């Protein structure tokens, strides 16, 4: 097989975002709104509480990095959702391209989108709040990659639900990230959670990413302990998500869901 089918799928999955005003808004506008709201809130909190100035950079860094995971996940799910809405899912699944190629195309588009929004937010944060992401330095790449991997895993899991249960499960595409956000210690250290929640939280790769991020911002050095855990957990989550997706795909074929939701 040549790269021609993969290229076609990447093109297809990229363009669907540009053809719908609502999706474009979701892709570009809302991350900017998030950044503005959180930026102003943290400025206000810093002013009234005379809190450490680092609260401000903690919050901005967290919101920018969280978007990476969210974008990577959304790109995968919405490609399949678009095919379901267009009644195009059958055409996609009867094409002589393995499911792995479809997923690879979605992953690449997820990566490009996450990178684009990350850069855009970093530039706006610099221009709007004089906050430079350069303070994190090179480890930022590793934090970015870990959140990308987690986004891919959630995306794969959500897509499995989508092709097995159709539109009824589409809400989960938006719900899962917001369910994980409070557990992932994005905006506060894991230590503020009750002990039993800390145990759950430390089983999630993003928790280690955000703990690592705060440590770099506070001390200027990277704690490899957190990054190692994030990578290890990401490998496990990716394997788990792949197994669940394969199971749900086979269940969809067994129950006729691909044809039920695809036409």
């Amino acid at each position, binding site marked *: 097989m040549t790269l021609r089918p993969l290229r076609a799928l990447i093109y297809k999955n990229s363009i669907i975002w540009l053809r719908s005003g609502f999706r474009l808004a979701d892709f570009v506008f809302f991350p900017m709104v998030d950044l503005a709201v959180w930026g102003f809130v943290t400025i206000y909190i810093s002013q009234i509480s005379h809190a450490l100035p680092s609260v401000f950079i903690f919050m901005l860094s967290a919101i920018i990095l969280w978007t990476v995971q969210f974008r990577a996940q959304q790109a995968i799910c919405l490609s399949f959702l678009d095919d379901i809405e267009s009644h195009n899912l059958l055409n996609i*699944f009867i*094409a002589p391209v393995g499911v792995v190629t479809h997923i690879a195309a979605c992953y690449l588009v997820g990566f490009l989108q996450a990178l684009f929004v990350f850069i855009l937010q970093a530039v706006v944060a610099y221009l709007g709040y004089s906050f430079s992401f350069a303070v994190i330095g090179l480890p930022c790449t590793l934090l970015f990659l870990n959140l990308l991997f987690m986004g891919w895993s959630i995306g794969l899991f959500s897509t499995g639900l989508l092709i097995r249960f159709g539109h009824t499960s589409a809400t989960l595409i938006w719900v899962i990230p917001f369910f994980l956000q409070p557990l992932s210690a994005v905006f506060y250290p894991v230590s503020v959670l009750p002990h039993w929640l800390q145990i759950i939280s430390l089983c999630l790769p993003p928790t280690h990413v955000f703990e690592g991020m705060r440590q770099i911002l506070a001390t200027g050095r990277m704690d490899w302990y957190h990054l190692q855990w994030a990578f290890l957990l990401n490998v496990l989550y990716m394997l788990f998500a792949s197994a669940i997706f394969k199971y749900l795909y086979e269940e969809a074929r067994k129950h006729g869901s*691909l044809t039920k939701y695809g036409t």
Partner: protein
Amino acid sequence: MNNNIVEVINLTKQFKNTPVVNDLSFSVSKGEIVGLLGANGAGKTTTMHMMLGLIKPTYGQIKIFGHDLDSQKNKILKRMNFASAYQSLSHNFTVQENLNIFADIYEVEKSKQRIEYLLEIFEVSPLRNKLTGGLSSGEKTRVNLCKALLNSPELLLLDEPTASLDPYIADKTRQILAQMQAENNMTIINTSHNMIDVHELCHRILFMQKGKIVAQGSVGEIMAKFGSESLDEVYISLSTNDSIYIEEVKTLK
């Protein structure tokens, strides 16, 4: 030498223990146009979807081009295609973009010329720059047929291909399909409720009821067998009369 393009062997599909396709066996030779007929719920579309690998059979085997579908799906799918009146291409792309994407997915050689040719013969060239989501159902059906013929398939599966077409376009579509079949010796399996499609296109028909084949033969043979003057009459008898089903299944066994 075995000239069969399709071999369906003891194919069964049960949904929640209810058989939708029941121990079905048939074969289709190269260059044949076979009509798969039957009332709603007879199991035609489920059979077709199993032949595309979209539904997993409960039992049985499907061999296409001599290969087992389950183990060599992509190799087989590259040489076949499918169109249905109930599907569409991506709504957010123009007709031309959609066809370009599928030409790349199927790795069609000289894709530009092939797309031009198909748009021309199905009379959808003026729609090339329109978003697919904005087309009428008949226009979508014709664009689907363009997509289904992009890779010059050796085996074409059609699910009610003329269901949403006006009589002029439906007639033209049948002519195009007959012409392409004759030129390339393409094998076609076609489900339809339109008996004109069946009369004009099909070399052989398989009548299905309750997931089984209850009658098969050419249009003439089927009508003679049931003493009917039209295929519509046979269709109605077979769809409404359970005793014919029991009798015919016994005979065929």
